């Protein structure tokens, strides 16, 4: 099984440990991974803020780059949602027939990480070990965009020594919303407060999700409030084993 890793612009820069965890995890599962260094961004931030032409040029770059990939794995449900929901509209409006065809051929080969594990590899037990109390936050794009459903739960339930605690108001948005977090910072913060109340009520050690974007927002506030609860991308949990537990030096 070969796969090409699209790390995403923000993971690359802000959360490289998630990328390292994805590599460790997938190689452990026998996946031959490659990383195309020409990659940059999927265009989501520009598309969602209204910079259509700019988003198009980034989308075109993505499609051309991964034209020959066997499949593409992306540890970010919002980026996959961008590709699945908005690329064809962008190419319809600004692209040409050739590009649309390339995209149509590529689309079925693009996977969010949890989808890749459960659907493509057929794996729910990835041999992980993470002896902590964990609560899962359902990022909106994964929940409603990709319909990941219970994939993350199935994966987490098989992690040895992990105590999974459910989060109240699971489906309510945490308030990140990309540039919304800055353009509407006060409302974003109010939504964040509500989400943190629910997260802290779980008394978990870690809050995990499919997206570091939500976790950056939650984690940033947790740190500001000097809470001990940490955030960790699901890849970090799934990469953690008894031989190589999370927290040990790589």
């Amino acid at each position, binding site marked *: 099984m070969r796969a090409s890793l699209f*790390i995403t612009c923000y993971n690359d820069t802000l959360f490289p440990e998630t990328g390292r965890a994805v590599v460790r995890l997938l190689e452990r599962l026998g996946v031959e991974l490659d990383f195309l260094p020409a990659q*940059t961004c999927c265009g989501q931030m520009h598309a969602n803020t209204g910079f259509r032409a700019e988003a198009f040029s980034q989308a075109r770059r993505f499609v051309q780059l991964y034209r020959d990939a066997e499949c593409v794995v992306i540890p970010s449900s919002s980026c996959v949602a961008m590709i699945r929901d908005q690329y064809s509209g962008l190419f319809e409006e600004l692209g040409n027939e050739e590009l649309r065809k390339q995209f149509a051929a590529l689309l079925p080969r693009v996977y969010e990480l949890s989808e890749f594990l459960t659907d493509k590899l057929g794996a729910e037990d990835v041999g992980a070990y993470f002896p902590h109390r964990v609560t899962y936050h359902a990022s909106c794009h994964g929940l*409603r965009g990709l319909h990941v459903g219970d994939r993350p739960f199935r994966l987490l339930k098989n992690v040895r020594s992990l105590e999974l605690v459910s989060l109240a108001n699971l489906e309510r*948005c945490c308030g990140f919303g990309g540039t*919304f*977090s800055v353009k*509407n910072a006060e409302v974003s913060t*109010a*939504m964040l407060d509500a989400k943190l109340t629910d997260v802290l009520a779980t008394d978990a050690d870690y809050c995990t999700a499919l997206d570091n974007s939500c976790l950056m927002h939650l984690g940033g506030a947790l740190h*500001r409030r000097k809470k001990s609860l940490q955030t960790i991308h699901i890849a970090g949990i799934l990469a953690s084993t008894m031989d190589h537990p999370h927290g040990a030096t790589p």
Partner: protein
Amino acid sequence: MDPRVAPPFPTAALPILQNMQLRKNVAHATDVIQAKRNNLVAEKRDWHELRTSAAAIRAHVLANLGTYLEQFETTCTAAGGTVHWARDAAEARAIILRILREENATEVIKIKTMTSAEIQLNPALEAAGIAAIETDLAELILQLGEDEPSHIVVPALHVNRRQVRDIFAQRMGLPELSDDPEALTAAARAYLRRKFLSVPTAISGANFLIAETGSVVIVESEGNGRMCLTLPRTLITLAGIEKVLPRFADLEVLLQVLARSATGERMNPYTSLWSGITPSDGPQRFHVVLLDNGRSEILGRKVERQTLQCIRCGACMNTCPVYRQTGGHAYGSPYAGPIGAILTPQLEHMQHAQSLPYASSLCGACYEVCPVKINIPEVLIELRAQVVNQERSQPSRWFDPMYLGMKAANFVFAGAARFRLAQRVGHLALRLFTGKDGWIRRLPSLGARWTMSRDLRALPDQTFRDWWATREASATREASQHEERR
């Protein structure tokens, strides 16, 4: 609430976010209605099929709007109604005022209709010396309290019983009034009953117009609608052109999804249907004012047309996590919440309320609950593109940090070499703001909007791509050393 003068959403939200009473009321009300709605949807085995049909019927109507409106005009006129067409708010106001003058009206009783707020009818009536009496309990509370609605279906949910008591006591001259909801309601009942029985002219909106029969349908909870539709001599119904349905039987779909979505009930307490004039039953003069006011323009836009499918249930509002924090006032428009965020700027031809399409985290909860499947996030994104396109020709854009940032980011994303350079530059620059524990607590400019409530972890010393490159390099070295040894 006038979108032309309302402050932008982020500004308007500020005082509301500090009003804990309002936030508590809004959160409570929306949670209650949302829970009721969810229960009834779970109970309804054919909910998905109903939703599919409702969406299809509404889309079909819009695609054939001219035909159905003309049919409605014919059948309503044949039934004894008079149909008027208003291109915009000013024209609608003028038509209504003309009818009222012909009636020598000094007072009108009104059933809640957002369309009337949209055209700013009440101030025009007041200016013409005509008292407009709102008869929905919530609207009455707001009118007497000189306030604005905060929710489509429960407009006074930001007002608690003590506040209502105070308003009624003062405006109805009832100093001894208690704040018990029963007593308050009884006071409203008595006050309004006198009006219902004496005022000869009423103004209503419409939930649906039936093309096949020329009928109008209104759904309500309190009975004031029935009072206004039945007792006066003259009835004026103001309706957006998108309200039409093809046939009477289409109500079998729309009524099922509307009540469950709006108030979490299987059916709302009262639904009234009437066709033109019926001799000896109800008003003997009946006017319908069909309002365009920007709707035909929305109709012509591929992605935006679905905005007009809306049946004003309010479910999007009840599920919206943004609305839950701000209530309706922050939107500066009769239409608030997710639907308001897309409808209001469009009715203003994208000349006003440009902050509203950004008043969303794009979570998609609204789309999930919309009974007519309006893909609100899709429309929000489309409207954002229009706002940015306006900005592209404005000189002020060069002073807008967000605009500059987006242009810079696009430049950077166009090539890996630039991207890596930007990563290095960013890493260096942010070192200036990084504390000893490896976290950033304060950033300048746009960054300050992040750090107002969140820390930011410092940029790691090594990006993922550099780590990968290093790993590849050492793997290659090992492989070639291995080769050499052989």
